[in-house]
């Protein structure tokens, strides 16, 4: 198939349409607004529903309604908006309604800025809302993966009846790259549980209130079991040059590509570096990382935040090896040479040798 030059946000939006997304509800916020602007024109073309809601709170509740009625539905936002959606996401998780929620991250907290950032890692991988739930979190590293992982996200959402997050940073959302778009999906899964009107069957109820302790416990245990199943079957990651590496750089999203450049530069210098990129941030590929990081190795975590994935890496390696950290919190990613500097330092090489 022919490749097209597409902005990451647009690649995501078009892939959603091809994945059968027939409803979108959202509210503008930089740096993801292109998603909704694109869908405002595109969804009506394919007979879908597009609506700009009055707020992120309304948008996520429209998602809840449409998802409950059986739609393939998506919303997108950035940090401040995801905070507002938190209540609705909790309801979606509790009622096991499939949907895709995109967060193109900007720097925070508070209003922060519109610069690229990875500062919503904790918000996405723990839970944005109340009550203790989990949602799969997919982290694309470029425009191609904005398309591919969105396609996958809809599939996972329906398969596990869960909200799925796409956690992208503004670099991924805004950069234009050549993208091969996925094919249009042919058939959508049946949803016999949806509230479409009770024609010819017993009523369907979508509800997250459990006043009976046992019922509540059973419901929550069932959710926990589902999360375990997702962790077992859907953990995704990519590793390059890890087999012989002394230093393994762990990075996600666009930053993994900058880290890759640094790893290659290190290799040119004779430092055996490797790259480990979690593709699912929840479930975090802890077992795979543990396996890659044997006791004679070191780990360098690189993020555009103050050290959020760092906690997951530390848990995974369980103090068996030294873990270094390079974080940027001002909205600019570190340059490859800066990462290289840290790799070299950890390898015991002098910085001077690399310049």
């Amino acid at each position, binding site marked *: 198939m022919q490749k097209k030059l597409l902005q990451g946000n647009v690649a995501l939006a078009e892939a959603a349409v091809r994945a059968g997304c027939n409803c979108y509800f959202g509210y503008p916020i930089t740096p993801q607004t292109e998603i909704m602007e694109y869908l405002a024109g595109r969804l009506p073309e394919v007979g879908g529903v597009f609506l700009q809601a009055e707020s992120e709170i309304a948008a996520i509740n429209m998602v809840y309604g449409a998802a409950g009625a059986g739609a393939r539905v998506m919303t997108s936002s950035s940090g401040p908006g995801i905070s507002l959606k938190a209540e609705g996401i909790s309801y979606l998780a509790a009622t096991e309604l499939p949907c895709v929620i995109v967060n193109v991250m900007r720097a925070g907290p508070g209003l922060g800025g519109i610069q690229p950032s990875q500062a919503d890692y904790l918000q996405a991988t723990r839970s944005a809302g109340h009550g203790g739930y989990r949602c799969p979190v997919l982290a694309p590293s470029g425009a191609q993966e904005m398309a591919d992982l969105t396609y996958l996200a809809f599939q996972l959402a329906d398969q596990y009846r869960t909200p799925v997050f796409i956690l992208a940073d503004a670099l991924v959302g805004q950069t234009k790259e050549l993208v091969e778009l996925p094919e249009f999906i042919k058939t959508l899964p049946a949803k016999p549980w949806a509230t479409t009107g009770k024609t010819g069957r017993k*009523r369907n109820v979508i509800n997250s209130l459990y006043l009976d302790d046992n019922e509540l416990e059973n419901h929550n245990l069932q959710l926990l079991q589902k999360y375990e199943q997702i962790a077992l079957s859907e953990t995704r990651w990519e590793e390059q040059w890890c087999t012989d590496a002394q230093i393994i750089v762990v990075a996600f999203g666009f930053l993994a590509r900058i880290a890759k450049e640094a790893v290659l530069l290190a290799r040119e210098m004779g430092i055996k570096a490797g790259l480990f990129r979690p593709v699912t941030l929840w479930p975090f590929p802890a077992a795979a990382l543990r396996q890659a990081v044997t006791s004679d190795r070191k780990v360098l975590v690189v993020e555009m935040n103050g050290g959020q994935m760092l906690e997951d890496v530390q848990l995974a390696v369980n103090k068996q090896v030294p873990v270094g950290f390079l974080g940027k919190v001002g909205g600019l990613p570190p340059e490859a040479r800066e990462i290289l500097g840290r790799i070299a330092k950890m390898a015991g090489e002098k910085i001077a040798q690399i310049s």
Partner: protein
Amino acid sequence: MHRLAERPTLLVDRAFHYCPGCTHGIIHRLVAEVLEELQLADRTIGIASVGCSVLAYEYFDLDMQQAAHGRAPAVATGIKRFLPDSVVFTYQGDGDLASIGMAEIIHAAARGEAITVIFVNNTLYGMTGGQLAPTTLLEQKSTTSPQGRKAEREGHPIKVIELLSTLAGPGFLARTAVHTPAQVLKTRKAIKEAFLAQLDKCFALVEILSTCPTNWKLSPVESVEWVEKQMLPVYPLVKLERSDDGTWLKTQL
């Protein structure tokens, strides 16, 4: 023996959890009767909100979604936009609709979403134990306005029908009561009209003055009197129907 009335088929055969003298039950019944009469059950999706009526999904033999506090109009919008041929109604208390969910109701009304809103106004938060609501009357005591509501402190009661009537979106708005048999019948009629308005692709809302003997700390009989004496002067019973030229036809009820 000749039966005058039977349990509506669309009400599940189980006891309500409502307090004695609470009129939520009457309103449930009326909604079920109307949907039955209009034969809409097979394409209706009801939305239970948060408040004493949170368990409404247990009572209506219909497809139901339970919504977060105040968000029912947005949930209804999502369903209705995806399934335009469905009939969607929300069932909301005054705290739910006029406080936390004020933005959602105003925007759903402004968009003219073809949904029917059953809005139960009992002037306070029933479920959480009688706190101040946006609809609480001036001088009325609540657990969070123990000296009585004062305009300077807690502001004025919000009149939802009048507020929504400034918008061009709604097609049918009514305020009714269920404290006398005659008013119950008028409410039934208004509910029916509100569903018919939805079938005509209009946003429709019926505000129903309801009782809360438990939190008003009145007997059921005193509660009915309180509706008559205290609520009616502030919340007049009225029906507003949008005519073809966009103006409201107003009927006192």
